[in-house]
């Protein structure tokens, strides 16, 4: 019950936003939205503190048969693999609400759409039924299309439709796979389908192919990433938080929780190729990111690289790699949200995102610049910050399963460190390039409330990754047991 309530509270929030009187002043709208967004977070934290040791199998479940003849049901529950993302969704939505300071027009509609998207995202991470998973998956599509298309920059409309077409193509392909799977297995429930649902090996491969392809488009894995840059660049800061923090995880989570556990034999032949794609993501993201003159584009490509590590860990299908991949989903969300928000702050202050135009920001805005540095150091995998442990685990696991790919992926850490340090040197250190920057102010208390918790969590989880591993490792273990991995 608490699962369902948490998923659908944002929907009530969306209705509330639409019902607020027009003449309400902006500050109160923002405050109410933040209060609404805090509720799912509070509930998720409650679940964390009470149930964090008991999420090996889906807990807090709810089963309502929807279409009995096809065995489709409203089945939700929280398990260790999904719960981290469930919690992160609630957290980042709150951050996105706080960070919506650059959204000036139609604020109520903006928050309403954000909340509808949150319903979809929370639902995906709690769904225990293929059709329901798909329904929630798609529920994020329309709000995100509108968030980008209506509140983005001048390129927003082209970006929004590109985003829509790519991801809709992916999800429709995935749906065809889901339906074939459900029909052949006679059920759409995760618990029945686990381990292949009784399908032969060949049937599993045939069904897994469209599912994996659809999920990889969502991530996106590199040759399928055509929408990414336009969309990330066009979006307002607060949309970026969700867009990079949560949405790619719909794809990776689909691999970790749906494709691999439910179709182990079907996915197996694709695993080396997923690992190759992971390497491509990592190296391509690093090299192209290095070339970017635009700070936001650099962060976007670095995000692509970090997602590659999740794919690598998933493709390893062993305890270390899988745990690393699940954890990396969380840590990537933290650092990319942090970087995007700070880039937004920089842009608001300086009026530019060109790396060559920026410089010396640490002198003028020490707090924002330091937190940006923490995010960047985390992104390159500095020990002591959250991404290090997860990335390291994916590499260790990956090395066991696909040594060549893992070695190449490790190169990505070096290149990542190189271009992040080079970027930091130009953006926050060095001389102040533009005399106008002398007058800029540091992050306001409101801005700090959006970025400080993220930086703090990066440090906290960097030192105590166990805080999250404790939630997930039983679930990971049970997945690996089901599929006979190790």
């Amino acid at each position: 019950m608490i699962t369902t309530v948490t998923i659908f509270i944002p929907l009530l929030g969306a209705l509330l936003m639409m019902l607020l009187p027009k003449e309400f002043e902006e500050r109160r709208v923002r405050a109410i939205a933040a209060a609404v967004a805090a509720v799912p977070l509070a509930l998720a934290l409650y679940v964390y503190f009470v149930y964090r040791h008991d999420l090996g199998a889906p807990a807090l479940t709810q089963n309502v048969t929807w279409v009995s003849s096809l065995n489709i049901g409203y089945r939700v529950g929280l398990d260790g693999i999904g719960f981290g993302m469930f919690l992160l969704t609630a957290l980042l939505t709150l951050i996105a609400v706080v960070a919506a300071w650059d959204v000036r027009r139609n604020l109520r509609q903006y928050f309403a759409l954000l909340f509808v998207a949150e319903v979809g995202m929370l639902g995906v991470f709690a769904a225990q039924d293929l059709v329901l998973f798909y329904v929630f998956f798609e529920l994020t599509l329309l709000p995100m299309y509108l968030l980008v298309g209506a509140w983005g920059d001048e390129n927003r409309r082209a970006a929004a439709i590109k985003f829509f077409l790519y991801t809709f193509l992916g999800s429709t392909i995935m749906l065809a796979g889901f339906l074939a799977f459900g029909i052949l297995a006679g059920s759409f429930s995760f618990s029945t389908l686990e381990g292949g649902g009784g399908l032969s090996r060949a049937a599993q491969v045939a069904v897994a192919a469209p599912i994996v392809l659809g999920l990889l488009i969502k991530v996106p894995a590199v040759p399928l990433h055509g929408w990414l840059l336009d969309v990330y660049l066009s979006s307002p800061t607060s949309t970026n938080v969700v867009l990079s923090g949560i949405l790619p995880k719909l794809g990776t989570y689909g691999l970790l929780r749906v494709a691999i556990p439910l179709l182990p034999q079907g996915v197996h032949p694709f695993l080396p190729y997923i690992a190759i794609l992971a390497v491509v993501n990592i190296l391509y993201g690093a090299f192209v990111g290095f070339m970017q003159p635009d700070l936001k584009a650099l962060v976007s490509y670095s995000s692509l690289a970090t997602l590659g590590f999740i794919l690598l860990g998933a493709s390893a299908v062993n305890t270390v790699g899988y745990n690393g991949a699940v954890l990396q989903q969380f840590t990537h969300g933290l650092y990319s949200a942090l970087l995007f928000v700070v880039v937004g702050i920089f842009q608001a202050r300086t009026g530019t995102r060109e790396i060559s135009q920026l410089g010396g920001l640490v002198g003028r805005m020490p707090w924002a610049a330091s937190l940006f540095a923490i995010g960047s150091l985390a992104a390159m995998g500095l020990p002591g910050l959250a991404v290090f442990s997860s990335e390291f685990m994916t590499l260790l696991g990956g090395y066991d399963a696909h040594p060549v790919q893992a070695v190449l992926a490790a190169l990505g850490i070096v290149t990542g460190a190189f271009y992040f340090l080079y970027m930091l040197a130009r953006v926050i250190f060095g001389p102040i390039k533009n005399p106008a920057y002398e007058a800029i102010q540091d992050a306001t208390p409101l801005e700090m409330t959006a970025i400080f918790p993220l930086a703090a969590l990066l440090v906290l989880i960097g030192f105590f990754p166990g805080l999250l591993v404790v939630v997930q490792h039983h679930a990971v273990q049970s997945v690996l047991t089901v599929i006979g991995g190790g």
Partner: protein
Amino acid sequence: MPYSAESLVALLPEIIGAVFLLVVLMVGVFLPGSVRVVGGLAAAGAAAVFAAATWMFASGFHGTFFGGGYVVDGFALYFELLVAGCAFFTVVACLGWARSAGDATEYLVLILSVMLGATLLVSMRDLFGVFLALELSTIPSYALVAFDRRRRESPEGAMKYIITGAVASSVLLYGIVLIYGTTGSASLPDVAKTFSGPQQPAALLGLLLLISGFAFKVSAAPFHFWTPDAYQGAPATAAAFLSVAPKMATFAVFLRVLTEGAPGEAPVWTAVLAVIAIVTMFAGNLPALRQTNVRRMLAYSSVAHSGYVLTAFAAWQGNARAEAVQAVMIYAAAYAVMNLGAFLVVDIVGEEAKSFNGLVRTRPGLAASMFVFMAALVGIPPLSGFWGKLWVILSGAGSGSVLTYVTVGALVVSTVISVPYYFGIVRGMLLEEPVSSEVVKKGEPAGLRLAVHTLAFLTFVFFVGIAPLSAVARAAGML
């Protein structure tokens, strides 16, 4: 016993429909200018047909009548409900227009006669009966298309529609005659016997001609060229009605003719229809991308949706037969609410794509409803169109035939192709500035507005009804 009292009960919805048709005609003649009264009577007629069919459905009434040529079963009643429901919304929506056009009675009578023909059609189990009922629903629809004499496109569209329609009818009739000639009977069970025996070229040719004739009627490629002109020319409410009610009834009887009349030739016709389905989807979606006129766009979109329904026809094999029938039924309902609604919005806003620009500023409620229709036509969950497509894909996936898998693949691809044109409207409504404030007609009739919002609501809450609907379809679909 061909003419028992029971056979009168079997005809109850049709009798009620015919009575109301005559009453509306008479009242219109003797009380000219009383649009409110005739409109109310017409709406009551559609509602009464709906109620009668509901009662028969609920009481489990079924059987074959009139020498086996007429059948009442869940499948037929389901489509009668659908047709009557669509007619009701159309009547409610068209009153304002009909009043201003000055021929309200004639317009309503035509709608009721299309409804009558369509309700008869779904119960026919005799090829000649099928032909007659089909013409009964088609001939008034020619007049409906030509009805708007103030617009040049209206007679033009009607002319194309009549000519192609007449050719289609002849082709259909020729097919029926060939089958009758080899079988010696036009009753579907007898026809089935012929087709399950040794193959007879003449009968097979008849079957192919029959399929071609039906393909014309449901605007399947390559026989769909009349559709954009007819839907563009027709009054918007007529286009709305014609694109759903008679079309779905024709699909229903088409499916009945194939599954009851030629199950033995299923490998042939599923293959033919798979190919037609694939061609139809692309013949609808690709030209739709280029349209700036929303009516033509929706006409091409309805062609594409015919292709999606035919995908379920192609899936009628192996273990997926029941699912295929269910898919057609569920798709019909899902399509009816969303497409009817979309056409009615066009009636309010205008047919130029530009006139939708900035609609969310000027008419937020209307924009929200249109958004629901467009997203549903794409097939985004949890809206109605998604469930239709879901069942079609399910039946295709269960059919076990490679050609059907290809057809389902084509459905997936063409669904994605369709996104830009549906979302062109959405983008215009939500993301563009209004062209000018005067293109927004305020003060459309309350009935029209009510119909639009009710249909949007039904499109939206379809997911609540999908479980009972699928149960009904399952029970009714056991042909």
